[in-house]
């Protein structure tokens, strides 16, 4: 994997993170039983952690 930081790669990384974050926030909303602001905040931060892990995992596998 090339490690140059062109705008295109940055955009791709941000897109990947955002896609994971949105998907995992949706998953959180499916798991819980009632929705209220605190639940949104916790869900969004957990989804962010999940997105970072997903990105890190993919990078660790493809980066040799």
């Amino acid at each position, binding site marked *: 994997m090339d490690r140059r930081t062109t705008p295109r790669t940055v955009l791709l990384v941000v897109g990947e993170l955002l896609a*994971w974050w949105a998907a*995992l926030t949706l*998953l*959180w909303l499916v*798991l*819980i*039983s*009632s929705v*209220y602001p*605190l*639940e949104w905040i*916790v869900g969004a931060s*957990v*989804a962010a*952690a*999940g*997105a970072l*892990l*997903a990105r*890190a*995992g*993919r*990078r*660790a*596998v493809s*980066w*040799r």
Partner: protein
Amino acid sequence: MSRRLRLWLLALGGAGLAALLAAACLDLPGFGGRAHPYGTRAVHASLTRHTANTIASVNFDQRAYDTLGETSILFAAVLGCVVLLRQARDEHRARPEPARVALPVRRYALLVMPVALVCGLYVIAHGQLSPGGGFQGGVVTATALHLLYLGADYHALERIRPLGVFETTDALAVCAYLVLGLAALLAGTAFLANTLLPYGTFNTLSSGGTVPLLNAAVGMEVASAVVVLLANFLDQAVEIEEESAG
């Protein structure tokens, strides 16, 4: 002692123990009985403190001191493993060859890893509402990381697992539990008494006073403890080799 003699001794002791256990079983209150005095009181106490999951209330409020003991056993057990499995002087690390895993399995692992993380954190966060809590969710969260070993190889797992961070988190989480207990003491009540925070609205994430915080501390501790534990076993099983001369 010969093997035969040992078996005879075992049979004798086992028969005696079986007779005693059977007698004890016949004297226990019948299975499914209606009288549970402790249970009734625990449910009542949990409801007055706005904790929807009575089991979490028992663990992190009514018997929080007992849970402190459990977490310290867990901490000590992990510490013992780290000491026993550390790399000795007559051992060296050999890097294993990278594994070739079938593509569907690798994709599955990469896909399920974040999902498992979110589910584990969900189980921790909702510990005081629905079934779950720090102990269960912590194990699931730690398992999520190790999908990378199963789906790729140990080398990939090592890249996303800063072991020092997890060791520190483990210790910090135990400290956080203690500090929360001491905070109650400073506020003028008993150690680990749940009087520090408002009890909140029933059946929301912020209900139950200090229960969610203690729950989160235990979740962090269990998750990092399991990661450290598995890291030591993986090191031994995959990387560490003895010097063949010894």
